[in-house]
């Protein structure tokens, strides 16, 4: 039973962690929590199934096209739902604008793709439902690759350092001559690609289903809150823990009690550490 809990728990946790990273990447560049995050994950699954399963494109080409399309959706999010309301951040208008765009994406997917879940193609032909099944290790691999890639980007490249500068202090970065707007667009494209990767890698687990977005939005937010807003390491650790706890609760308690158990832990953790496990308490001038 422990092996089954770890196998499916880590796979699900990796998907939640990636969603948390998407939230963080968008937030770092714009201070906006975008509700299109879950839809990017949904699109990763649906577009992957469409390109490879329906159109019959080679896996690598289908994968690349999926990431490109999701990156474009990320850019559209910035242009349509974020930029127009950035000057009124304190009024939280982005909640409305990103939610509206998320609903539009979901409806278009429902109309074009259909309202029934559809199969996601086997990429390597390793199935069987056990621990070696690709549907379980692909999300974990995608999560590890993403974290490794982001670490390299942020620590070893000039562009990555520019991202960090924008996230740290937007005004100071602009004063130094950094192209803030372009970097924000690039951040949203990067977030879109990571969301697409999450959906693509979990396609066999979650199926290509237009309604996955809402679930990913919801469970993707938990690692962000638990790990601390802006902390990718926190999101990954919390996401993986969330997946394992959720599956453990599923095995031991089952049904609705599993969700209740997860959120009891979530609330207790936030009561103990309001800034999140890996977050830093914000200082306020008084």
């Amino acid at each position, binding site marked *: 039973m422990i092996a089954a809990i770890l196998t*499916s728990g880590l796979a*699900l946790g990796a998907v939640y962690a990636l969603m948390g990273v998407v939230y963080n990447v968008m937030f770092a560049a714009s201070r906006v929590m975008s509700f299109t995050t879950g839809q990017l994950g949904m699109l990763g699954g649906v577009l992957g199934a469409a390109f490879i399963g329906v159109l019959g494109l080679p896996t690598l080409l289908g994968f690349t096209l999926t990431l490109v399309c999701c990156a474009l959706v990320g850019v559209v999010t910035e242009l349509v739902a974020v930029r127009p309301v950035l000057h009124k951040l304190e009024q939280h208008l982005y909640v409305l604008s990103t939610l509206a765009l998320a609903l539009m994406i979901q409806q278009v997917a429902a109309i074009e793709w259909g309202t*029934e879940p*559809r199969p996601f193609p086997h990429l390597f032909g390793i199935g069987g*439902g056990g621990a070696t099944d690709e549907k379980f290790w692909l999300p974990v691999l995608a999560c590890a690759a993403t974290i490794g890639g982001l670490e390299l980007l942020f620590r070893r490249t000039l562009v990555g350092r520019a991202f960090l500068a924008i996230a740290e202090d937007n005004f100071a970065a602009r004063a130094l001559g950094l192209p803030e707007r372009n970097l924000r667009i690039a951040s949203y494209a990067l977030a879109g690609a990571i969301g697409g990767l999450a959906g693509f890698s979990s396609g066999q*687990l979650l199926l290509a*289903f237009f309604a996955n977005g809402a*679930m990913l939005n919801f469970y993707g937010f938990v690692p962000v809150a638990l790990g601390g807003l802006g902390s990718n390491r926190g999101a990954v650790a919390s996401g993986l823990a969330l997946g394992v706890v959720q599956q453990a609760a*599923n095995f031991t308690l089952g049904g609705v009690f599993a969700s209740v158990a997860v959120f009891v832990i979530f609330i207790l953790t936030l009561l103990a550490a309001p800034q999140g496990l890996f977050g830093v308490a914000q200082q306020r001038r008084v």
Partner: protein
Amino acid sequence: MITRRTLALGSTGLAAASLASVRPTLADNEPIRIGWLAALTGPSSAPAIGFDRGVHQAVDTINGQGGVNGRKIELVVRDTQGDPTKAVNAVQEMISRAQVHAIWGPTNSGEALATTPIMARFKMPDVHPCFVDSLIDPARFPTAFRMAPSNSQIDEAVSDYGINKLKLKKFAVIGDTTGYGTTTVNSSSASFGKRGAEVVYKGTIDATTPDVTPDMLRMRDAGAQAIVVWTVSTGLISRLMNTRANMGWDVPFLGHPAMGSGEVGKLIAKPANWDKTYILGFKNCSYGPDGKLPQKVQAFVDSVQGKIDFADTTLWWVLAGVDAIDLIAGAVRETGSTESSKIVDYWNTLHDYPGLFATYTFSKDQHNGMPQSDLVMSEANSQKQGAYKLAPGYG
């Protein structure tokens, strides 16, 4: 001598007489207006599209033969999109403006719960195929008639098959977390309990749950000999089937017809995962051991080859659409009237009316027209031209 007064009186009398003679002629030739509340678009449109094919086939056939007592049938179709609010508006418009004589539909219970009281208030004859038990109540809704099974009948059919045909005693009853899933799990469990079987596991599963292994393990540990499934989510159904295969557990699934949907066939890991799955079906829409439909239904299917596509729908939807129109047309034919009270009175006397979909019996106190004996179980993976093979156990 013909005076001016006599001439005037005579002319008036002639005019009155001619008017009197014209009025019945107009009534006799007036079309029979049948309202068809169809959810032709939207997420729950699949059944209505199937029903619609049968409806148009029946109307074309009757009108092609000269109509009913010389009166043509005129369909008044309104797309409700599965939305109860739109269905209510459509019913009110059909009754007040289009002045229909009878209504067929709506075809899902959510809409029918909203429209049935309105139709009862306006004494509008209505036949519908919705399953929720409370939709039929001759005291409250004397003009509403059901020509499909009620949820109670479905529960009875499934529990009867599990206990008496498969000879099993311990069942797990599961559904999704929707209102339908939750209530049906309870009513189905009660039906098994009433027949002396043991419900060893009862629970609901979120339809988007990616891994149902924990639930399946609990069912196996509880000693379930069969799993009764109540959901329309093809994703959940296929996950249950794939997990059963991965566990190497040879347990049968019984329950909702959605388990026989073609979408399930696309989602399962291999075709064998679909075996040992038995869904609710209908006697007239099932292939017997000889691979044939009942004679009358087979004749109908043969007669509409090329006109009706059965490949993307189910046979019972089409047949029920035909029967609905025939029931209304039959009432007008036999009573010679489109008056509401006469149509309802006629339906109340129907006994063993031989429809294509079922053999209907109504009375003043019983408006559930489908007999329990018309409900059977079918093999989920045997769909061919919208119909299924009878499940093992039927002679």
